[in-house]
């Protein structure tokens, strides 16, 4: 039972540390948003922080860090398809006036 408790504590501790990172990054994102920084660097920082937060959730909460290649393939294929679909629409949406 005691080893169970120790294991539970270590499991929960790492989950709470990730949550603290997520909250800290949310705070950092809000700070960047409110500071008088030019728009492009602000956007780069905000979306960089969002990407880092998403990576933390995917890696640690969704356990992708310990997954097999098959799961990575299932997750990445639709992402690449969505990016490809967006790219082929550029001529129609961005350059059409």
């Amino acid at each position, binding site marked *: 039972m005691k*080893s*169970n408790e120790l*294991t*539970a504590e270590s*499991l*929960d501790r790492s*989950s*709470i540390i*990730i*949550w603290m990172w*997520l*909250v800290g990054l*949310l705070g950092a*994102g*809000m700070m960047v*948003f409110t500071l008088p920084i030019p728009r492009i660097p602000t*956007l780069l920082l*905000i*979306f960089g*922080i*969002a990407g880092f*937060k*998403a990576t933390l*959730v*995917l890696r640690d*909460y*969704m*356990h992708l860090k*310990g997954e097999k290649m*098959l*799961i990575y393939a*299932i*997750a990445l*294929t*639709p*992402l690449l*398809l*969505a*990016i490809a*679909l*967006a790219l082929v*629409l*550029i001529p129609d*949406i*961005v*350059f059409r006036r």
Partner: protein
Amino acid sequence: MQVGYETALSPSGKLGVWWFIASEIMVFGCLIGLYVLFRVAHGGWNDQASHVNWRLGAINTLVLVTSSLTMILAFNAVRIERRQRAARFLLVTVLLGFTFLGIKSVEYTHELGEGFTPASGMFWSFYYIMTGLHGFHVLGGIILNLTLYITAVRGTLWSGNKSSRVEFAGLYWHFVDVVWIFLFPLLYLA
């Protein structure tokens, strides 16, 4: 007791959940891609976007991130067979989900009251479609977690391999969190 990911899951069930998440990635990925393209192509959305309440959006992000923590704590409790603890964290996750939807409905009420409807412009169309679709996913997750909570309290969750459902529900819930992590800066901060 050795605690590992393989002890509490059925590989076929997990693959099924990931296939489902893959289809969701296509839906949200394409919506986000279209939003970015339209926003780049047609300037002038900044005025419309300035009317959303980013403070409430930030609070909702905190709520959803915290609900991801309680969901993983429920899963951790399942892995070490602490049944009451697992049920308690599932309930907290459900309550945080309702909190998220409550705050979102306050936002909608305020925005609609000011005359910003889905027909008020391209930004508002995207805003209502993306946050509305995400809201439906949150509602689906709440129903899923509430079902798990009820089965955990009744004791039927612990028979056979049913406890792996907490992990599957968790994968879905965390994915909904990841989607919001991108929607928040796109719609409230950019």
